[in-house]
């Protein structure tokens, strides 16, 4: 572990600094002072090395803004046996994530100010990853009555979401979009038509039929997206679709963007690295919502990311304990943990998909920062020093047992990957360093 000499001064030297915001991608050095980025650039230390600073030799590894993760489940309040803010924070920091947006489908639901305050208090106690609570769009996620959006925003809500649900009442959805516009607030939807996806547990189609499982047809996604885009067109406002899984969705969202609508979308690594065959014979770890789709859609999502048609990659981190997964497939809970596989799995887009590294990092840093109006996710003088240092060359193996998340429901156990996080910095403070990472 790295022990800081002087908490307020840190120097990262000899790093490949990548900042998608400015397009900076160069070998150089970076100085942190008083929680912010003091300076960075090529040959910065040539003439002057601050002697009272902690100096870290980055050995030409990648230094980029810390990742910002939309829509993670962190177990609090209500499901502390699956994850708590401490374990979520440890897992996130070990993954290079410095900010997370947590979902409102907690118990109780994040639809009132005290619950926002509770999460902020817990985050402060944990003093690790930055946690931005999202609040429910409707009270108790029931889809009928709007929450106090203005007051919740004042209390610290970063955006509004119904978690895995949608607002099936078209009028309520219209009101939500219209009302949120008063505060320039973002509405985030995981789009699956509720009637078509009711009781469904995996992708609808031939495989579901063979396994005798009720399916969620592909069309459930595009139907919801098209309705919500129609509404957005009439109301204006900011809409984000999280967990896009189908090619049709990409096309529809692209068309809406071309029309000038303020819409963005994101997907998660399992949707571009796995398909429905991961369900194999009722493997409940492959039960996620929305479901893993067919090979063609997986490929389409992958391609859309490379071609910059999807804005953001998020982990969709959903911890589930053994008792929630060791059940018949239909009874098992949805979800897969995602923090610690977020970057290593996404890096394939660069190594095999020929995506520029800076563009990949953009989807994990500056793009979500823009969506959330955060003054982080970029390397800029006087911006908060939220950074991560990554080795993208050395192969290693993902080991489920070694993951920091309290629940170990991942499908990526024993995957051979690259993209190990060496060090993570939040507000100028080293909050994680890889045990084997040696520095001068």
């Amino acid at each position, binding site marked *: 572990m790295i022990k800081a000499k002087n908490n307020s001064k840190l120097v990262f030297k000899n790093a490949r600094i990548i900042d998608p915001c400015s397009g900076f991608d160069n070998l150089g050095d970076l100085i942190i002072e008083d929680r912010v980025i003091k300076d960075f650039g090529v040959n910065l230390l040539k003439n002057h090395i601050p002697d009272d600073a902690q100096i870290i030799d980055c050995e030409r590894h990648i230094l980029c803004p810390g990742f910002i993760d939309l829509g993670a489940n962190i177990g609090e309040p209500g499901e502390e046996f699956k994850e708590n803010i401490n374990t979520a924070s440890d897992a996130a920091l070990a993954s290079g994530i410095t900010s997370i947006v947590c979902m409102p489908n907690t118990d109780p639901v994040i639809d009132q100010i005290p619950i926002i305050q509770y999460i902020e208090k817990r985050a402060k106690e944990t003093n690790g990853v930055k946690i931005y609570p999202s609040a429910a769009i409707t009270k108790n996620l029931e889809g009928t009555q709007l929450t106090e959006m203005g007051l919740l925003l004042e209390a610290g809500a970063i955006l509004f979401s119904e978690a895995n649900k949608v607002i099936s009442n078209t009028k309520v959805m219209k009101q939500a979009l219209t009302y949120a516009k008063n505060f320039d607030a973002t509405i985030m939807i995981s789009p699956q038509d509720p009637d078509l996806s009711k009781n469904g547990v995996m992708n609808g189609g*031939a495989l579901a039929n063979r396994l005798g*499982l009720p399916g969620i047809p592909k069309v459930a996604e595009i139907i919801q997206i098209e309705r919500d885009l129609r509404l957005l067109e009439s109301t204006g406002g900011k809409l984000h679709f999280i967990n896009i899984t189908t090619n049709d969705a990409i096309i529809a969202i692209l068309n809406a963007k071309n029309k000038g609508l303020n819409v963005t979308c994101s997907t998660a690594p399992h949707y571009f690295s796995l398909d429905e065959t991961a369900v194999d014979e009722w493997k409940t770890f492959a039960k996620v919502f929305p479901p893993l789709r067919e090979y063609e859609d997986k490929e389409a999502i992958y391609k859309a990311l490379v071609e910059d048609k999807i804005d953001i990659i998020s982990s969709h981190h959903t911890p589930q304990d053994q008792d929630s997964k060791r*059940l018949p497939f239909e009874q098992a809970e949805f979800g897969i943990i995602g923090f610690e596989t977020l970057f290593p799995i996404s890096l394939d887009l660069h190594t095999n998909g020929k995506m520029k590294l800076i563009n990949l990092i953009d989807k994990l840093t500056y793009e979500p920062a823009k969506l959330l109006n955060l003054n982080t996710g970029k390397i800029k003088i006087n911006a908060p020093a939220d950074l991560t240092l990554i080795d993208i060359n050395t192969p290693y193996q993902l080991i489920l047992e070694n993951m920091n998340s309290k629940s170990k429901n991942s499908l990526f156990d024993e995957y051979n990957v690259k993209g190990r996080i060496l060090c993570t910095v939040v507000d100028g403070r080293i909050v994680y360093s890889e045990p084997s990472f040696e520095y001068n």
Partner: protein
Amino acid sequence: MHALDKWLRNNSISRKTFSTKLNISIATLSRYLSGNRIPKQEIMQRIIYLTDGKINPSNFYIIKNNNSSSSFKNYKNDHLLGIENLKEDEISSLLNRADEIIKENRLEPKVNQKYNGKTLVNLFFEDSTRTKTSFELAAKRLGIDVINMQIETSSIRKGESLLDTAMTLNAMQPDILVIRHSLSGTPHLLANKVNCGVINAGDGQHEHPTQALLDALAIRRRKKQIKGLKIAICGDIAHSRVARSNIKLLITMGAKVNLIAPSTLMAEGLSYYGANTFSNFKEGLNDVDIVMILRLQRERMQGSYIPSAKEYFKFYGLDREKLSFAKSDALVMHPGPINRGVEIDSELADDINRTLILEQVELGVAIRMSVIEHLIHNLEFKK
């Protein structure tokens, strides 16, 4: 190799020496070892005495089955979880033995002592009369002790108890666990956790392998062979585990399969197995040898799948007029229980010349005996 042969070799005793000790001819001993004869009681006691109890009656009974049918060789699994992935010779093995059992049943007393001391647990998480009774009867005819567990639907709603229940039962060391559950894949989940043989007696909308096997047996007994037959399966294909198992089995055995259902009750992707799909009853029945009618669940008769039972019967219920589109000697099958006047005309259902419905029930016992024997044999072999 016979266990006794192995014992003789391990103890360096020749067959000749051993037969002298038993006071029998070497030819008789050979017949014991090949399974063509079972030692009389007094000789059996000598064998037990001479081998220090290492060889006991069960060694002879098991081997007898093996040789008389020569079929056990082909079914090597410890479980019967589904028809999927079974090969033609594995299915034939199960059917052949059932055929033999039917012969034996007619000649011998109903209960024999072959598998005394073995235990079968019927673990039913879903209501069932015929399947459960059929398994119970099959086990009892083999001399197996049967425990029936009817799990109250209310207590399984939590789900957590499922694996716990199975582990508790496993600790009692049964030989066979027969499970029916409303959720697909449950028998597979349990099979990974328990040490005994697991038989799937119906899981959700996935499979019901013993039903498909008994259907195949019924067809084979009437039509001599399955290969080359044209078989129509009609009704609620989408939600039917019987249909899934039957499609897989019949196609594996070389039949042509037509699936007939209103499109709301047709399942996507079953053509994967090579079945043809029809929404027109008459077209689908053209030239078929066997018409299998599926039961229509009551809750699907109204609502969005089909508008009413009346409409369903008009277009998809089997009556003599529609049956006339099939071959003139076509036979009708139904897994039961029947909804008279919904999926099949009542009078037609009772026509023993055209339907195999009661025969199916009778054959169910034989096929289940065959499956149980196979699994016990395979489990013994592993020990």
